[in-house]
């Protein structure tokens, strides 16, 4: 209410000074860059943390980190990567930049709210970072923050660490809600003339559905965080049963740790798709553009996104097969989980069918897109193991899970991020990123992560539990520990290789080859702006009008190999090149 009412006080006006233009900016493009740079910065912290963890796992005798720090690094690594990096980057970064440009709006509908969203996000990041400096350091409860463990003495950071974490999450949720509200309303309200829902690029669809999911799912985490804070500070017993921790009976009674898990995963599972759906959308556009071919089965792709988004609210307890909940729930959640695999598989088929009979330019964004498909297929298929309750029972909480989710929601979306940055960098800066560096970085990252995570599945099959500081057990052969050392070395190389990407980004921003407005020959609106980078208000005097869908590549009879969305149809007799929503559009020849 407040922000709605105050939005009008900030009409669009020309930015006056550096401060209003780049700091307290209400321009979605500036906010997008603020979001992205903050997310990348905090992501680098998480990358360093993972390196430290890997050093412990690969070289347990090094003594570089102790058990407390190991668990703290583990927790922060997970939390940052999932929420503060990927969610923020896809929604706040790509979403902010691309939605208004792709739907032909001048800005988000609530620019002031958009600015607030970023500043809340920044504060949540700062609070999170501050937890490194509170007494006892950040929480080491694991990113799932299960009580009672998260707030009892045997866990590092059980006093201040967990409270700063919960506070930071609560602030982040406010930021994400303000942001998502903007993205959803903008898509619904600010599309330009002719931009029907079924003409939107899949990028917008992915971010749009993910934003709706964020609006519905984040409250679960918020409620859980508030309740846990009350349990930790006020002595309530929402989640805390009567327990004796570290030799002392705590003043709680009757609370249900499983209640927290239900709330957490009601958020946590949709969260996976909040990260994945934008990645699906972006990669669809990358593949279509660089294969110079329309996306295959656009309608199916849209419906798959919507169905996946809806179903993901009914699968949460597949994270809890061995949590002690009623075993009969396992039947329902196994079925719902495997059902969700069907629309997901459709998406994969449509990506590879888009490549088929295309004109595949193996540009850097295309390499990342193909890398994504390979990684995502591996991660998605191993999801079928873990969703199938009988297979999950032995594999739960082992390295198989670690390998699975790193593949499917760690590496795969990150590859899309890299591909997306390479793809849209020319629009943001007016310059191309360096091709050679990009390829080098792609090969190291793609092959490196594959070599890191593929063998890890087999450590899980062997039975190695996750979240272990050290593996001193007889059933684990020395060779498995050697494999761990190997994985660590590769991981450090991959981590170091990210410098290539950062260097490429910074160098290209100032020294890159000027790109022109539409270097890839893409059809969607953001490439048709009068200026590159787009000016304030995006479109110059008149907003564009849309006449076709976003995938008119190699239209038979057209002179160029792409037809921008702004290009009027050439008359009713020529069916080719129509968007799929027009009657008689079944243009497959």
């Amino acid at each position, binding site marked *: 209410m407040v922000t709605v009412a105050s939005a009008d006080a900030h009409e669009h006006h020309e930015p006056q000074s550096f401060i209003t233009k780049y700091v307290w900016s209400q321009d979605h493009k500036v906010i997008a860059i603020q979001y992205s740079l903050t997310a990348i910065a905090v992501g680098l912290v998480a990358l360093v943390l993972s390196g430290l963890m890997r050093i412990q796992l690969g070289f347990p005798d090094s003594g570089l980190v102790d058990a407390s720090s190991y668990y703290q690094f583990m927790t922060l690594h997970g939390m940052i990567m999932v929420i503060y990096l990927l969610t923020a980057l896809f929604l706040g970064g790509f979403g902010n930049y691309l939605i208004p440009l792709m739907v032909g709006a001048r800005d988000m509908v609530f620019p002031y709210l958009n600015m607030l969203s970023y500043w809340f996000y920044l504060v949540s990041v700062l609070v999170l970072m501050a937890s490194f400096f509170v007494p006892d350091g950040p929480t080491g409860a694991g990113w799932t923050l299960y009580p009672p463990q998260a707030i009892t003495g045997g866990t590092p950071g059980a006093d201040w660490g967990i409270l700063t974490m919960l506070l930071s999450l609560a602030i982040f949720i406010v930021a994400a809600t303000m942001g998502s509200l903007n993205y959803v*309303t903008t898509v619904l309200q600010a599309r330009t003339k002719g931009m029907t829902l079924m003409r939107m690029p899949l990028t917008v669809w992915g971010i749009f559905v993910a934003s709706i999911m964020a609006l519905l799912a984040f409250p679960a985490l918020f409620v859980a965080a508030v309740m846990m804070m009350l349990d930790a500070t006020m002595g309530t017993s929402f989640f805390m049963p009567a327990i004796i921790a570290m030799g002392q009976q705590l003043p709680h009674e009757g609370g249900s740790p499983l209640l927290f898990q239900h709330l957490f995963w009601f958020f946590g599972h949709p969260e996976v798709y909040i990260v994945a759906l934008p990645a699906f959308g972006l990669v669809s556009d990358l593949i279509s553009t660089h294969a110079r071919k329309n996306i295959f089965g656009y309608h199916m792709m849209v419906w798959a996104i919507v169905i996946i988004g809806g179903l993901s609210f009914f699968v949460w307890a597949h994270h809890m097969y061995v949590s002690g909940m009623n075993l009969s729930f396992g039947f329902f959640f196994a079925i719902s989980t495997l059902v969700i695999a069907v629309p997901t598989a459709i998406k994969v088929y449509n990506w590879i069918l888009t490549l088929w009979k295309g004109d595949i330019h193996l540009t850097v964004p295309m390499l990342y897109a193909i890398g994504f498909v390979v990684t995502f297929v591996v991660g998605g298929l191993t999801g079928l193991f873990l969703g199938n309750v009988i297979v999950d029972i032995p594999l739960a909480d082992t390295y198989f899970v670690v390998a699975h989710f790193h593949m499917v929601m760690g590496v795969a979306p990150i590859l899309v991020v890299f591909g997306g940055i390479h793809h849209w960098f020319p629009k943001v800066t*007016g310059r191309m990123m360096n091709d050679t560096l990009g390829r080098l970085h792609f090969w190291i990252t793609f092959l490196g992560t594959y070599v890191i995570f593929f063998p890890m599945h087999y450590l899980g099959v062997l039975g190695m539990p996750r979240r272990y500081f050290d593996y001193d057990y007889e059933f684990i052969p020395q060779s498995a520990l050697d494999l761990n050392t190997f994985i660590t070395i590769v991981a450090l190389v991959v981590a170091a290789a990210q410098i290539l990407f950062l260097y490429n980004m910074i160098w290209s921003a100032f020294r890159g080859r000027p790109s022109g407005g539409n270097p890839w020959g893409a059809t969607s609106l953001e490439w048709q702006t009068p200026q590159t980078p787009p000016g304030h208000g995006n479109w110059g005097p008149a907003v564009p009008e849309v006449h076709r869908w976003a995938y008119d590549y190699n239209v038979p009879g057209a002179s160029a190999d792409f037809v921008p969305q702004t290009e009027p149809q050439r008359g009713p007799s020529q069916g080719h090149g129509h968007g799929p929503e027009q009657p008689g559009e079944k243009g497959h020849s």
Partner: protein
Amino acid sequence: MSHWVKYDPSRGTLDPDGDGRSWQGPAGRGRAAMRGLLIFLLPLASMFALVISAYMMRRHVGDWQPIPLPWQVWLSTVLLVGSSIAFEVARRAAALGHIHDIRRGLLGTGVLAVAFLGSQLWAWFHLQEQGYYLAANPANSFFYLMSGLHGLHLIAGLVAWSKTRSALTGGADVASVQLYVQLCAIYWHFLLVVWLLLFGVLFWVS
């Protein structure tokens, strides 16, 4: 980034209202704000629904002792209903452009809403006196949590309400006032429904 930093605004005139089809302008903004508000109710509904489902799950544990709802809560409910009715009066007056009635309706809304919050606080103090502390029993914890979350949202609503009032007294144009009143009224009714649900759950399911 280089272009971005060196961007020169003089290279093009960018009048955001230059095109009638875009969302700007009072009418377009109103639709967007209305839709934005309705979308904003989604996460709120989700949050309160989750609190209620947590309540439903938690109350099956043996240590649950139902909390006797103090009579002040009934008073609160009446006050909140009154507040919502007053806002409805203001909203209809706004639709007809009757500035004076809007003012009266808004005033009534505000007074009743503040009275609601006061009554809720009274209920809290009453419970404290009786020994129903926050942490003494999960039923108590849920009562304080639910009424607290609801109250905080009403306080946020009062901030928007005061903006509406200052728009009204500050002589903003009629369209803006109508918009604000309408938005606030929807939010008010939403909070009333939420409170009735919470109240019903606390009263019947305990």
